[in-house]
């Protein structure tokens, strides 16, 4: 499971919609880091490919976290 950090809850929900259009399963979530709370999406899909797809939709992935570090 990966957690892809996006800049806001709005961006996270938009990401979920974009990925759903590609039949990629994801869910929105939030983690707390030293930089404060960060919204993003959980997905089991390849994170690099996910970020490429999201960038086509105008979203920047700020960070990719995996495994036990995913929140």
């Amino acid at each position, binding site marked *: 499971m990966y957690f892809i950090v996006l800049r806001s*809850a*709005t961006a*996270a929900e938009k990401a*979920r919609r974009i990925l759903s259009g590609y039949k990629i399963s994801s*869910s929105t979530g939030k983690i707390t880091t030293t*930089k404060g709370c960060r919204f993003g999406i959980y997905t089991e899909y390849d994170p690099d490919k996910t970020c490429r797809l999201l960038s086509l939709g105008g979203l920047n992935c700020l960070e990719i976290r995996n495994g036990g570090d995913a929140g």
Partner: protein
Amino acid sequence: MIYLDNAATTYPKPVSVLHTAEKALYDYGANPGRSGHRLSLETSKQVFGAREKCAEFFGGETENTVFTLNCTHAINFAVKGVCQSVGHCHVITSDLEHNSVIRPLHALYKQKRISYSIADSGNSDSELLASLERLIRRDTAVIVITAGCNVNGRITPLSDIAALCRRHNICLIADCAQAAGVIPLSLSDGINIICAPGHKGLYGPMGTGVLVTDGKFPLSTLIEGGTGSASGDINQPDFLPDSFESGTINTPGAIALGRGVEFVTAKGIDRIYTHEMSLCELFVKRCESIKSIKLYRCENAKSLPVVSFTAGEETSSITADMLSQNGFYLRGGLHCNFLAHKKQGTLEKGTVRLAPSVFNTRTDIIKLTELLYKKYGGKSS
């Protein structure tokens, strides 16, 4: 009771809006964009859906659509946001403007942060355009203008004004308070920032509004605070919509507004406009035989479904009071727009404003005019 004060706020609201607001209060009670638990995320999802509908409705991007408390808030965010970002600049507006436009401009002027000019709208689109063009200076940064006047219904030629703004690299801010949901309005017409209330022609609850920007002109923030994002940074986030949504938004209002937009889209703006205009035309036609009723309309420009009138020498508040006592709810006075009243010579007495919604019928208008016949003389037809 016959409610014809829909230019102040539409009433009643569609049943779907009522049910959605109720469901939001029952089922989406967590704070959206704040917590990571399931209820908060579900609420965020609902808010996003409403934001998406508003964005689509005005031809904007979802992230560039900001929920505000009303149109006045949106106009303040837009005008002050652009002016603060540019520095001291010149702003042009028109003599048709509501206080939600002229008061922020005048406040900025008193603080020596801008200078502003008021274009004479004359009696036609070409006169308004010529007047706007004449006032443009090298330091003009913004034209802020109504899409349609809330006193006499006059529609302004926004596409032509947008073309003028593009030629001079001026930001066009449209006050769509009366026009949103009644005539088509889109960023694709060249408007840079659309400001709209949620509670009028979009049939959402009071306490809702939107600002939709094409992002071409940077906006400084007026209110800073918690956004649920970038919380470890002392600086306000610089991305939309978070930068303009500090503090908790009116969540049930926003979700219900999404349903209102859906209602308008399903009905069709053209059908809504045709229906409401036909009621105004019926009113005008039936008032023809009442000599003491004077109507205030712009004959040489397109109009929103709003008709202002006075009865004889009475002040508008007396006429509106009489109507209220007989079960007809119309607004008298200056409608928060002294500029338009000054232009049409009704600053002293004000006017009574007829503003139908999609829920009014021909029978409502016939009953209203029957009362006017009875009070002021005239022939019933």
